[in-house]
């Protein structure tokens, strides 16, 4: 074994070194380029690292194997007094070790570097490198993917690559499980990694023994390989289909050529505007159901357009990990600090840009120097969004933005579980502007500018006489949603007084009364707006298989006047294809559809009331499953698999749909059939007896010139 290790090491050390250099450049380069940030915390760094790890491990496995695969070289390697498993094991130990060194050594150096104060303008916590470390670790099984790609004895290179699916899924799973409470998270994360390594090792080891031929593998390996290929094909198909549908979307016949966008006017009236999809021009306009004239310059602002946090497996990185600091966008000119929020301490820490040392701390008491220990702390940080790009500030008489007065910006309003704080680092101002009820903690804050729909409003140059836009602040609690409309009483007072004095004195506080029969705990992404006498609610009902969008137009007292239910266009189009094609894909689609980036009621056609598709997802899945099972059964019978395999493949195809069928076609070859010389029927060439007449094969043709002497006389005993 040591000989094998020595040989692999000598042969492949150079690749390990190349990998190490690349990894060094990426990891340390990323940090040196931005010394203000703790790159290890950034999801960009981590996703690039993850992708890089998967590719690197695969390439390493490839390099170690594909050159060995040519016939004579393979025979040279394999024909020795060691088992193929030992040979693979030696390759794996060397390969994965080189990979780990390449990944972890730069990481270690990076950690040491970052932990020394004055190097990086960010706090350090020993658990920070755990995520990248586990990312590197959980993608190690991709080394086996490289080996399998080299080994597999198939004609088309496309199918050779279809072995990344299983390790990818388990790898992603492993990293995703990392998010919550850390120690359990780490343990949970290791389990899929271990399973991943084990499965890939079993499959690859058996494949090496049998030179990559499916038909020769043992049953466990066959199952793993079939699953792997099927998942890979499904992923590839989803990627292609997804890409294709995105590109084709504007041109799809099914998609509407126009969209109807809904909003509420000041007086509570429901406005519906029909917009042409391609030209984005307004075609028609209705208020409370009545058509009105369209003004050329009309550009409605859609209150129903909001941004929601993206659904990533593992959820909110910063909220969930109580140990890790979160970079914050508290920018300030004077203090010249980069700010981080530390969940464990409940404070903000500011690190100086130049010296990169901890200079200031922000606690509920205010902005303190670093040497001073804060006596109070903030509660847990929640999501807060202030429409970025829109600097909500007061305007002076000439409608110019007043830069002096502290503005309400995404970096000044922070929501914690117990209330909302206004934090302005430059002026040193830290003030609680809203307290949540103790039994109804805050879950998020949204502040946006609400623009009257009659007005055209360009960002840079508002018309001279445009009235001040009120601010719509929405505070989402666990149980309730509270909205505040913030208006300034008159210009002078706003300009001369600090804005926040006036800000959340409730000038107009409205709490929603839910329409009867709606239980918000069932729904996600609840959104509500109220203007005048009416309110517009939009929410997603994810309790059904396909997330259904509900839009209610109701009176302030809760009486519902109109209720529209639909699923979005995306689901409509893709779900038509997916279930027949990729049942697992449908499941994923259904899970994620409800959490897309935007809820855009532009997808809702005004005439669509309570539209339910005739076939729900469940129906589609069942039909797809049955069709796939039948086709799979037919293919398997044609390929003359054993009875156990027949059952297994049929079930497999039922579950995996088209990707399962393609795996079956790719893996199990059709045996060659020739005519039986006795009964004339077709018979497989790999069976010694004809299934119909039990005859053997004809001996090869003789033409009278054969000399076959099987038992030659032995050489006479040696004469000397």
């Amino acid at each position, binding site marked *: 074994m040591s000989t094998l290790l020595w040989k692999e090491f000598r042969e492949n050390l150079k690749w390990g070194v190349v990998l190490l250099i690349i990894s060094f450049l990426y990891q340390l380069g990323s940090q040196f380029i931005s010394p203000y940030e703790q790159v290890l915390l950034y999801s960009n760094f981590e996703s690039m690292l993850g992708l890089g790890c998967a590719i690197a491990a695969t390439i390493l496995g490839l390099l170690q194997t594909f050159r060995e695969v040519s016939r004579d070289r393979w025979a040279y390697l394999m024909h020795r007094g060691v088992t193929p498993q030992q040979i693979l094991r030696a390759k794996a130990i060397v390969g994965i070790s080189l990979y780990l060194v390449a990944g972890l050594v730069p990481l270690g150096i990076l950690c040491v570097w970052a932990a020394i104060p004055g190097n990086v303008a960010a706090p350090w916590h020993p658990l920070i490198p755990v995520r990248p470390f586990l990312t590197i670790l959980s993608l190690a099984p991709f080394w086996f993917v490289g080996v399998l790609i080299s080994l597999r004895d198939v004609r088309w290179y496309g199918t050779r690559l279809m072995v990344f699916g299983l390790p990818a899924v388990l790898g992603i799973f492993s990293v995703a499980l990392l998010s919550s409470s850390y120690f359990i998270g780490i343990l949970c994360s290791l389990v899929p990694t271990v399973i991943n390594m084990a499965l890939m090792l079993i499959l690859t080891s058996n494949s090496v023994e049998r030179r990559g031929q499916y038909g020769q593998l043992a049953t466990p390996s066959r199952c793993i390989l079939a699953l792997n290929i099927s998942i890979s094909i499904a992923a590839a198909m989803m990627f292609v289909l997804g890409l294709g549908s995105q590109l084709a979307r504007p041109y799809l016949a099914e998609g509407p050529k126009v969209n109807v966008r809904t909003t509420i006017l000041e007086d509570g009236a429901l406005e519906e505007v029909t917009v042409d999809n391609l030209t984005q021009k307004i075609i028609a306009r209705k208020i409370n159901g009545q058509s009105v004239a369209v003004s050329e310059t009309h550009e409605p602002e859609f209150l129903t357009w909001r941004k929601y946090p993206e659904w990533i497996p593992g959820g909110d990185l910063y909220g969930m990990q109580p140990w890790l600091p979160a970079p914050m966008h508290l920018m300030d000119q004077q203090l010249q600090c980069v700010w981080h929020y530390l969940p464990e301490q409940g404070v903000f820490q500011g690190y100086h840009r130049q010296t990169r040392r901890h200079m200031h701390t922000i606690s509920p008491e205010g902005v303190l120097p670093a040497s001073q220990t804060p006596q109070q702390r903030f509660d847990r940080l929640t999501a807060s969004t202030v429409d970025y790009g829109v600097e909500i500030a007061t305007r002076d008489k000439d409608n110019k933005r007043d830069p002096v007065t502290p503005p309400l910006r995404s970096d000044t309003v922070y929501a914690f579980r117990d209330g909302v704080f206004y934090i302005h680092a430059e002026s040193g101002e830290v003030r609680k502007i809203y307290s949540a009820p103790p039994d109804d903690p805050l879950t998020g804050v949204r502040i946006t500018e609400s623009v009257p729909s009659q007005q055209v409003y360009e960002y840079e140059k508002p018309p001279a006489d445009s009235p001040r836009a009120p601010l719509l602040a929405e505070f989402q609690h666990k149980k309730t949603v509270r909205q505040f409309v913030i208006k300034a009483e008159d210009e002078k007072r706003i300009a001369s007084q600090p804005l926040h004095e006036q800000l959340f004195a409730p000038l107009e506080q409205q709490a929603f009364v839910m329409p009867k029969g709606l239980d918000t705990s069932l729904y996600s992404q609840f959104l509500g707006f109220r203007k005048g006498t009416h309110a517009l609610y939009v929410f997603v009902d994810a309790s059904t298989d396909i997330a259904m969008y509900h839009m209610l137009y109701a009176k302030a007292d809760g009486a519902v006047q109109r209720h529209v239910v639909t699923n979005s266009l995306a689901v409509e189009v893709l779900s038509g294809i997916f279930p027949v094609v990729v049942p697992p894909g449908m499941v994923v689609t259904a899970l994620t559809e409800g959490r897309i980036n935007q809820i855009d009621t532009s997808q809702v056609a005004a005439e669509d009331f309570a539209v339910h598709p005739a076939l729900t997802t469940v129906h589609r899945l069942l039909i797809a499953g049955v069709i796939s099972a039948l086709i799979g059964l037919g293919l398997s019978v044609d390929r003359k698999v054993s009875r156990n395999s027949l059952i297994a493949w049929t079930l497999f195809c039922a579950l995996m749909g088209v990707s399962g069928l393609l795996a079956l076609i790719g893996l199990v070859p059709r045996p060659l059939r020739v005519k039986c010389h006795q009964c004339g029927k077709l018979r497989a060439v790999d069976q010694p007896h004809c299934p119909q007449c039990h005859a053997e094969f004809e001996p090869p043709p003789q033409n009278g010139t054969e000399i076959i002497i099987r038992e030659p006389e032995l*050489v*006479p*005993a*040696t*004469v*000397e």
Partner: protein
Amino acid sequence: MAGDIEIILGSAAPLYRQIVDQVRLGVATGNFAIGEQLPSVRALAERLLINPNTIARAYGDLVREGVLESRHGQGVFIAPRRSVFSDDERQRRLALAVDALISESVGLQCSVDEIRTAVEARLKELGLSNRKKRG
């Protein structure tokens, strides 16, 4: 000399037959002396670079014919001319050989004189003219 055995590859005669014929010819011409030791199977195989089994077969045939004798532990030697066959048997074999010669020659449409001249010339050439029957 007994060491003069050579082989020709690609000839119609198999290798073992070539060795047999050469030894026989050598004995007949007196090139190989009675009691002379032939190279061992191994040594000859090495020199000629052929399979020792070939040589073993040749030697085996020659021993059976009585041309060679095998002394245990020492090797093979040219055997003294022994009458392996009885007189009648010898006559019978001679008659066969003569028949073979005659049928071949007559087939070539040679005259009797031609045949006789050819035989005598050859015997002379090989220096066997004056050999007497060995007792």
